[in-house]
């Protein structure tokens, strides 16, 4: 990166009259200049660093779990430690990696650029949101490691309120606090997308990435408060003995599950919608073609967000919930598959009569489709009442949601990383290594999680740290796959930082992509646009790239 200036300029408003053409990365090199920045791009980098750290911690939990499960007997970990390990893995991965991952890194960096704005609507709130996230995250980590919580990330009552040892209260407080970061981010995106689009950037000229972040933001703002309520009620019962969930105190244990899943089912879409947005960009760019059925794909995001609020009861088919309620929840869960399928079909159709370039980001995008579709289909099996009765709370479910959340969301996150890396850093990475890491990811992922479908159907419950010996073969395969997968995740951690120094320089538009972000230099200047562009073309059309295509490297 260029090191030409010591100017600690961090503000957004003041000196706009004289446009500073230097990249945002050059706007101050001190730690202080980063920790007090309100530039959406620098906040995105702060998130990137923090999120990578939390991912590593969550992965430690996963490694412990997989190692323990390599043998049927409890040998590596005690029951307590095992329970704490998977709880830590779940809490950290869900709230401190997956939920913020794509929105807070790429949404933050790209939304203003994509809509032709100089920053988000509330730049300071954006920074505040990062501080809340990081402090809540560190607090939760310390709680999970020092004290230990063994309720699982689901905090089911009355286990969590009356019976669990460990620091449930503190962990709940950490997750509760992190929720505010989600809410602030969602709010910021909604206001930005509504009010800060460049002239001519109508709703239907927005990249699908922006549409899916809009839908995600609605979920963040509406669902997160319900989680906050549920956690407060846990604190009330566990800390103050107020009877809410424990029948001995006159409470209802199922109430918690309703509240929890009212948040946590939409939370799955908080993870997946941005991923779908990313994949749409990848497919269209490397197909060299407009997204097929743009409006359908855009509306599908909103449909998923809306229907996502109506299916929480599919987690409770065997809980003792009314049979008739279950039938309705099952139906709605079949329905919510429709908009997801619309996206997949449209991606496939976009490739028809296209001019396809096999780059690493596209391979991530295609891997996403393969894994996500498989996760979605097994989701339909779980949405089928009598089948869920057998598969519920077995590793079948674990496999299903890892296909969606890891095979889907994490793969898309890496796809986004490889696609926008040249924009964010101004450097290209070694393509062959990136392709190798996609390949390892695809193989490693399937090897890890496919056996868990089989195990689950065979009757292997989740959250078991010992199991019947006849299941060992499948567990061993899964553990071996996890090793491969870990390697696939580590590779980019080597060559991407390497490229910061040694990578080839990228021009403004190395992929020949559409979208306003590719019209500014890489890395973009602090205030993004010298002059705010006036958009006269439709999304993904050749006009959108006409002036900017660099000679491909």
């Amino acid at each position, binding site marked *: 990166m260029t090191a030409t200036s010591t100017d600690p300029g961090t503000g957004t408003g003041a000196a706009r009259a004289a446009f500073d053409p230097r990249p945002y990365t050059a706007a101050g090199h001190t730690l202080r200049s980063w920790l007090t920045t309100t530039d959406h791009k620098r906040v995105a980098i702060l998130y990137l660093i923090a999120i990578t750290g939390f991912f590593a911690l969550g992965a430690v939990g996963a490694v412990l779990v997989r190692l323990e499960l390599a043998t049927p007997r409890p040998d590596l970990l005690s029951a307590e430690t095992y329970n704490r390990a998977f709880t830590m893995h779940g809490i950290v991965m869900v709230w401190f990696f997956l939920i913020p991952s794509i929105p807070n890194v790429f949404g933050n960096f790209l939304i203003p650029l994509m809509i032709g704005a100089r920053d988000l609507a509330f730049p300071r709130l954006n920074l505040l949101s990062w501080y809340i996230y990081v402090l809540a995250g560190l607090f939760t980590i310390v709680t999970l490691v020092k004290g230990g919580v063994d309720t699982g990330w689901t905090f089911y009552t009355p286990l969590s309120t009356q019976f669990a040892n460990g620091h449930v209260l503190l962990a709940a407080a950490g997750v509760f606090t992190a929720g505010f970061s989600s809410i602030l981010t969602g709010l910021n995106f909604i206001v930005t997308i509504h009010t800060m689009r460049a002239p001519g950037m109508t709703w239907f000229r927005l990249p699908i990435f922006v549409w899916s972040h809009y839908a995600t933001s609605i979920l963040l703002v509406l669902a997160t408060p319900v989680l906050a309520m549920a956690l407060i009620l846990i604190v009330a019962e566990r800390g103050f003995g107020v009877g809410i969930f424990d029948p001995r105190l006159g409470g209802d244990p199922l109430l918690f599950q309703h509240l929890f899943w009212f948040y946590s089912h939409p939370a799955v879409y908080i993870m997946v919608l941005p991923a779908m947005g990313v994949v749409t960009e990848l497919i269209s760019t490397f197909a060299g073609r407009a997204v097929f059925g743009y409006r359908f794909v855009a509306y599908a995001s909103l449909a998923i967000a809306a229907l996502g609020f109506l299916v929480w009861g599919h987690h409770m088919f*065997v809980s003792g919930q009314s049979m008739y309620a279950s039938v309705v929840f099952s139906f709605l869960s079949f329905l919510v598959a429709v908009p997801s399928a619309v996206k997949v079909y449209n991606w496939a159709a976009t490739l028809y009569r296209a001019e396809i370039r096999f780059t690493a980001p596209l391979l991530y995008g295609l891997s996403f489709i393969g894994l996500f579709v498989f996760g979605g289909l097994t989701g339909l099996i779980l949405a089928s009442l009598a089948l869920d009765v057998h598969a519920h709370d077995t590793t079948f479910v674990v496999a299903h949601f890892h296909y969606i959340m890891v095979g889907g969301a994490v793969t898309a996150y890496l796809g986004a990383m490889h696609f926008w890396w040249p924009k964010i850093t101004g450097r290209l990475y070694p393509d062959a290594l990136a392709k190798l890491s996609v390949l390892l990811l695809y193989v490693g992922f399937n090897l890890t999680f496919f056996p868990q479908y089989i195990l689950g159907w*065979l009757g292997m419950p989740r959250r078991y740290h010992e199991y019947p010996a006849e299941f060992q073969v499948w567990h061993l395969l899964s553990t071996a796959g996890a090793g491969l997968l870990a390697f696939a995740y580590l590779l980019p951690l080597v060559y991407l930082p390497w490229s910061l120094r040694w990578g080839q320089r990228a021009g403004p538009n190395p992929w020949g992509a559409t979208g306003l972000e590719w019209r500014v230099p890489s890395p973009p200047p602090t205030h993004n646009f010298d002059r705010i562009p006036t958009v006269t073309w439709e999304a993904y059309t050749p006009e959108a790239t006409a002036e900017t295509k660099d000679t491909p490297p």
Partner: protein
Amino acid sequence: MSIPLWPRAASFYADRIDLLVVSFSALLLCLAVPVFVAILWFAVKYRRGSPAERGGPVKREAGIEAAWMAIPFLLSLGFWFWAAELFFVRSTPPPGTLDITVVGKQWMWKAQHPGGQSEIDTLHVPAGQPVRLRMTSQDVIHSLFLPELRLKQDVLPGRTTELWFQADRPGTYALRCTQFCGTDHATMGGELVVLPPTGYADWLSTSAVEPTLAQEGAALFRRLGCSGCHGSSGGGGAGGGGGSAVRAPDLGGIYRLPQPLADGGTVIADERYLRDSILDPVAQVVAGYEPVMPSFAGKLEEADLMRLVAYIASLKPPSGTTP
């Protein structure tokens, strides 16, 4: 050691589940494989530099979209219905079941047969006969999982949930807990032993008999002085208090029936209500009675409360009254 691929099926119901899952998976593959094939085919055919024809306007976009929204959905709805139908079967026990009481607690299962035979972490049932488990938990939520029957049901504190099945093939099968219930969740399990009917009868006759929950509850009912007000056997005595000065309602036959309350409302006398009546009697006072019953909150252990509730639930209505 052989590699397991598919769980054994101990019942005809399990066979039906297997048929359903295989058929549904087949449909799902029929829907997904063409998409995968198309993607791969396009990827090769339209790779940059290939001679394939490109571009061209899209015709009938709305029609295509409608087709791929509607057709897969409608096809899958058939399976939604099929699965719901089997779920209905699983949720509605036929009349004349053999009722076994199951209590889950950290970290063991206790089952008690109608004759009082008790067992821990094992469940003996006769083959070919509908069995109904009436289950409750003494602490957290557990879930009873019988994989070879393709069945499970959560077991909750403060409520009774039911699971019925008919195991058709004698054998020894797995019994596990699938709801994470604390430290030793993974060891909370044992065996489901399906015996031919004669074998079951033999097993019953050789097993030690323990007093049933309701019998233990009856003893408690007297020891705690409930009978002083409610009559010596709850519903057996005169409805007005069996000789004591206090007038207290007859508890015979009230279980699962609506009870009129002093405030004009009614309430179904389920487990929850019976517990509440014992722990907090003044919250819901029975119509026509004075709120003189003392609260037993803090004086009873969870297990005793369950015994009392089981006892009250077992009481028959006093002869001569119409329910």
